[in-house]
C-alpha cells in the first residue's frame, strides 16, 4: 500500500513536470516546422525577387514587400487608434471611474477581447465599409483604413488590461504624496502615476501592436486584398493586403511542397519571429512585476 502510493506519486509528479515543460517543446516544434517548410524558399526564390514589389504567385512572382507594407500600414493605423483609446480607458478605469462604473467596464472590455474576429470582419463588410465608402467618398470601402479601424478595436482590450494593471501597481503613497503637495488629481495622473507606470504602459502598447500584426480574419475580410505597395499616405484609403491575410487566403489552394507553399510558410516564419521579438522585449519588462505577466495572458 505504502509502496504503491509512492510509485503512483512518482509517476504523477513526473507527468506534471513534463506538462510544465511542454510549453517550451511546443514553441520549439512550431519554430521547427515553420523552418522546415519555409526555409526551402531561399533555395527556390532569389532574394532579389523575394524583395521585389510584385506578388503574383501564379506567374512565380513572390515579392513580399507589398505584403509587408500592407501589414505595416494597417498595424500603424490600428496602433494610432488603440493606443490613445486603450490608455485613456485604462486611466479612466483605474484612476477616475467610480466603483460601479469599473465593475461594468472591465467585463465589457474583456468581452470585446472575446468577440470572434470573424464576427468583426463580417460587420466590417456589411456595416463599416459601406458607411466609410459613402462618408469618405471612396471607390471602395474595403481599405487599409477600414482594417485599421477594426484592428484598433481588437487591440484595445489588450492595451487596456495590461496598462490598467500597470497603473494599479503604482503604490498609493505616490498619489497621496502628490496630492499632499497640492497637485490636482489630473496633474497627479499625468506627472506621477503614468510616469511611474511607464514600463507597464509601454508593454501594453507593444502587446497591443503585436496583437494587431498577427490578426488575420478581420483584416482578410475588410482590407480589399490587393497586394500593392503601400507607402504613400493615400495607401491608407486604398485596398491593401497583409502577410497574415495572404497566408490565410492562399494556403488552401496551393499544392503541398510547391514554391508558393514554401513562400507562405516563409511569411509565417517572419510573423513568428516578429511576435517572438515583441514578446521577449515586452516580457523582459514584465518579469519585474510577475503579477502583470500573468494578467497579460488571461
Amino acid at each position, binding site marked *: 500500500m505504502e509502496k504503491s502510493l509512492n510509485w503512483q506519486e512518482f509517476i504523477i509528479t513526473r507527468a506534471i513536470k513534463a506538462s510544465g515543460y511542454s*510549453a517550451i517543446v511546443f514553441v520549439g516544434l512550431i519554430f521547427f516546422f515553420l523552418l522546415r517548410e519555409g526555409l526551402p524558399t531561399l533555395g527556390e526564390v532569389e532574394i532579389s525577387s523575394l524583395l521585389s514589389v510584385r506578388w503574383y504567385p501564379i506567374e512565380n512572382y513572390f515579392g513580399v514587400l507589398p505584403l509587408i507594407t500592407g501589414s505595416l500600414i494597417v498595424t500603424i493605423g490600428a496602433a494610432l487608434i488603440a493606443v490613445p483609446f486603450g490608455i*485613456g480607458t485604462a486611466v479612466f478605469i483605474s484612476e477616475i471611474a467610480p466603483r460601479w462604473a469599473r465593475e461594468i467596464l472591465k467585463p465589457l472590455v474583456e468581452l470585446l477581447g472575446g468577440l470572434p474576429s470573424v464576427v468583426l470582419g463580417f460587420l466590417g463588410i456589411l456595416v463599416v465599409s459601406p458607411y466609410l465608402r459613402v462618408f469618405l467618398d471612396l471607390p471602395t470601402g474595403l481599405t487599409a483604413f477600414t482594417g485599421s479601424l477594426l484592428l484598433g478595436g481588437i487591440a484595445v482590450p489588450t492595451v487596456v488590461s495590461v496598462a490598467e494593471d500597470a497603473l494599479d501597481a503604482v503604490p498609493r503613497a505616490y498619489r497621496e504624496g502628490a496630492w499632499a503637495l497640492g497637485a490636482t488629481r489630473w496633474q497627479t495622473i499625468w506627472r506621477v502615476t503614468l510616469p511611474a507606470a511607464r514600463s507597464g504602459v509601454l508593454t501594453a502598447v507593444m502587446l497591443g501592436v503585436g496583437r494587431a*500584426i498577427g490578426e488575420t480574419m478581420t483584416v482578410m475580410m475588410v482590407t480589399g486584398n490587393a497586394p500593392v505597395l503601400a507607402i504613400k499616405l493615400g495607401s491608407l484609403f486604398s485596398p491593401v493586403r497583409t502577410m497574415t491575410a495572404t497566408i490565410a487566403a492562399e494556403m488552401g489552394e496551393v499544392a503541398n511542397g510547391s514554391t508558393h507553399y514554401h513562400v507562405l510558410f516563409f511569411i509565417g516564419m517572419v510573423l513568428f519571429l516578429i511576435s517572438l521579438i515583441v514578446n521577449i522585449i515586452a516580457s523582459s519588462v514584465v518579469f519585474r512585476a510577475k503579477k502583470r505577466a500573468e494578467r497579460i495572458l488571461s
Partner: protein
Amino acid sequence: MTTKFLARHRHAVQRIGFIAITLMAIATVLPIIGTILFILYKGGAAVSWEFLSGFPHDGMRAGGVFPAIIGTLYLTLGTAVFSVPLGVAAAIYLSEYAKDNQWTRLIRLAIINLAGIPSVVYGLFGLGLFVLFLKFGTSILAASLTLSIMTLPVIISTSEEALRAVPQSFRTVSVSLGATRWQTIRRIVVKEALPGIITGIILGLERAAGETAPILFTGAAFFLPRLPHSPFDATMALPYHLFVISTQVPEMPIQIQYGTALVLLVFVLTLNLSATVIRSRTRAKRQW
C-alpha cells in the same frame, strides 16, 4: 507662460481632462455594446428552430447551420480533451513544484510567446505537423490539437493564478496531517482553486470556439452534406461558415448571414458570461 496659465486654471484643466478621458472610455465601450445589440437585433429575425436544426441547401443560400453548430461543439470538446489536462498539469507544476530558476523563467517566456503567436501561424504549424507530418489529414483531430496548443497559455496562466491564491497555510496543515504532496495538491489546493481553474478553461475554450484561422487548413470544411463520423473527418464550424457565407458565396441572403453571426456570438458570449459569473461569485464567497 503656458505652464503658468495651466497652473492657474488647473481645476478647469482637470475638469476638461476628466471629461475627455470619460468620453474616450465611453467611445471605447459603446461600439462593443452596439455591436452585440445590432447582431442580436438583426440576427434574431433569422433564427428559428429550422435554422438551428437544418442543413444548409441550395448552395448554402437556404436552410440552417446545424452541422456548423455540431462541428464547433466537436472542435471545442476536442480542444478541451487535450488542453485541459495538459494546461492544468502545467499550472500545477508552475505553482506547486517549479523552483525559481532559469528553466522556470524559460517556461514562462515560452508561455508568453505561445500567447502572442498569430493564429494563422498556428494554422500553418497544424498543417505542417498534424495534417501532413503525422498524416491526420484535414480532420477534427488535427484542428482540435492545433486549437488546444493555442489555448494552452490562457488555461495555464489563469489556473496558475487560481492555484497561487490558495493560502500557504492550507498546504502546511495538510502535509502536517500526514498527506503526501500530491494528496495535498489534489484534495486541498486544486479543490480550493477549482472555480478559478474552471474560469480559465472556459476562457480558453471561448477563444478556441471563435477562431477561424487555425482551422482553415487543418480541419474546416466548406460544406458537408452529413455530420462527421469520426475524429478523422473534416467538419463544418460556425466561424468558418460565417466567413464562407459572407465572402465566398455570391448572392447570399443577408438574413442567414446575420443569423449565423448571432448563433456564433451567443455561443461565445455564453462561455464568456459564465466565466465572469463564476469568477465574481467565488470572489464574493471566498473566506480567506
